[in-house]
């Protein structure tokens, strides 16, 4: 019998230690303990040499400590192990972004979102790069798709409202900000932007 369930059980037999180390690495990364994260990811990579996860983690830890070259190498290994690894492309995009290579970064974020349109890190990275490049159409599309799947995500709502405004669509920006403030009335950034949008609409008026 070869079913999803039995494959999953088989995988657990093989990869439990790997999973513990990878989870631990992810937790250490989140709390900013990059040295421990690095140790865990390296060990995880030795146990699961065919898994891209630890290399993505190693890349993320390197990126956070300003080691762009190490990060790029790790993300490239992850891409080689799994050409459909969205997180690895996000990592490469972040490396390019740090190097101010916005065009390359934009393409890599796009590639990542093609593989996983749910990737919030790539989405917000794309937003930042788009702002640097003043190119908004594509990122607006992806943010809209994301919001359809996650309707209450205020960080994405704010980014989209800002992009609408920058792209000369103040009415859509206004609606988005009103929706956002209905969910989170105390959001200062949204209030400030709303004030700016309303002011612009009055002036255009």
């Amino acid at each position, binding site marked *: 019998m070869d079913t999803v369930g039995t494959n999953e059980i088989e995988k657990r037999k093989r*990869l*439990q*230690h790997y999973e513990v180390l990878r989870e631990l690495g992810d*937790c250490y990364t989140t709390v900013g303990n990059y040295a421990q994260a690095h140790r865990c990811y390296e060990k995880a990579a030795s146990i699961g040499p065919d898994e891209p996860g630890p290399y993505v983690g190693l890349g993320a830890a390197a990126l956070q400590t300003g080691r762009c070259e190490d990060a790029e190498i790790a993300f490239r290994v992850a891409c080689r192990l799994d050409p459909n690894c969205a997180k690895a492309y996000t990592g490469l995009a972040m490396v390019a972004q740090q190097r101010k290579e916005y065009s390359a970064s934009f393409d890599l974020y796009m590639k990542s979102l093609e593989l996983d349109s749910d990737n919030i890190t790539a989405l917000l990275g794309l937003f930042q790069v788009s702002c640097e490049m003043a190119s908004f159409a594509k990122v607006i599309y992806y943010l809209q798709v994301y919001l359809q799947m996650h309707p209450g995500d205020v960080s994405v709502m704010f980014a989209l409202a800002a992009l609408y405004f920058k792209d000369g669509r103040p009415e859509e920006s206004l609606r988005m900000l009103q929706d956002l403030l209905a969910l989170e009335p105390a959001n200062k950034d949204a209030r400030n932007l709303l004030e700016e949008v309303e002011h612009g609409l009055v002036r255009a008026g």
Partner: protein
Amino acid sequence: MCEGSLQNPPPISPDGRGRCGPLVSILLPTYNRCRYLPYALASAAGQTYRNLEIFVVNDGGHDVRDIVHSFNDPRIHLIDRRENRGKPHSLNEALGRARGKYIAYLDDDDVHYPHHVQVLVDALEGPTDCQVAYSDLYKTYCHVRSDGTREIRSKHVEISRDFDRFMMLYFNHVLHVSLMHRRDLLDRTGLYNEDLSILIDWDMTRRLAFFSDFHHTHVITGEFYSPLEESDRISVQRRKDSREYLRNVLAIRTTHPPKPWDKLDELSVILLVDRLDQSVAQTCGCLWRHTFYPYRLYLPLVPSDISRLNSEMPNVAPIAVDPRSSPAERVDVALQSVEGSYVAILPGTLPIEEMWVENPLHALIHTVPDREGFLLENAGPDRWGAVLKRVDLQRARSASPHLSVEASLTASGVRIRRPRQEELPFQFDTLLHQARMAEADGDWAVAARVFEHMAAHHHNELWMKSLAAGAHFDAGNHVEAGRLSRQVNQVRPTVETLLLEAKVRRRRRDFEAAIRLLQQAERGLRDSLPAPVRVPVTGSQGQYEN
């Protein structure tokens, strides 16, 4: 009075108060596993419970003298045999020299954690009638590197089954390496069966179950290794031979220890046939293959047929009857000889299949008052057969000897019916199978519900809660996964449940708690292999230098 010899170090309990516990004999047979033996032996010698004698039996394999002598521990005894005679012979040889009140077992490629013996001694010395106890073990999946060393990939408590005598008669659910029993029980069970090539452990645990309940302590006290690649275990290799496997199963099922049995009542099967012919031989063969409950077959036959009967058939008692006697009269004659508390009346025409008698017998043993019996599987009006208590049958036959068996039972108020679903054996196993199938189909929510139901109603609570937690997580129900894994971890954390709770905590952004849980899980994975013992450090307990 301490049972240890003068040679042994004074028994010291882990609490340091010098409590003298009974002597425990650990049996460690080995065959060509020099790479792993030092780890196994280190784990035995490193027990916190000190009043031990350890028998290493080299079953004609590579020389292990250097390994054993390197421990320099007077409690370790080497039985060094040049001839390979198999594991049962090795165990019997060690038992012949063992003096412990209790016997424990260790395989040469497995390890006990330092508290293993103490946990089981405490269980058996505590307020219990059990003379046998067992703990839980990790099944440790490992990758065997080209140099033979093991790289641990995962640890799972795959079996944590509470003792179930009916199951034990059907198949083993207790790992031998986790077992401890009183040595004097062997006077009643007999020694290991040296004719068996596999299932040696089950043969012994099955026989132990005739005389004692087993105390299940839910503490993880060791681990046994399972290579992810092809296993080198001799038993695994031999099980691939299906004919040999069946031969061993049948030998185990048909071999009974001497009576009296403290915990089991024999089943007497009265087979009703006209003459001894080919069909009787077939029925006997079916009985042999499809009956796991200990039985004795009573065969009422005319004297001329008895002389033709194969006398080598196990557990068969021919009963001489008049050729003109009716089936009821044959039952009456047989009843004068039967010893078992339960009697099955089996018509010769009844098809014998798995569970033919165990289903109704389980209902009879566990769920009904007197004056109730149960129809055999496949029995009906045209081929009536039933299992009932001997006293009920004897009472009915005495009262109405002129009636048929069925009519006499009715006349004496014995009700015969089919068992209800909930009265059948292996309810737990049936549900477990259903849940496993749901998991295999990716239907995690259904599996989780079944596991939770089992935890609530079918014992094995920790085990079932662990499985339910995993299934809930896979179903995306992280709240329940977190709740159940936390419950388990508060009682008996395992690598699996620690990882599960950590994943849930991480998703709730409780990173500090997740890290603590994952560190604990990692320690559990990493610290499994004790360093091989080299030289004991004087005055320390269970601490050695490499």
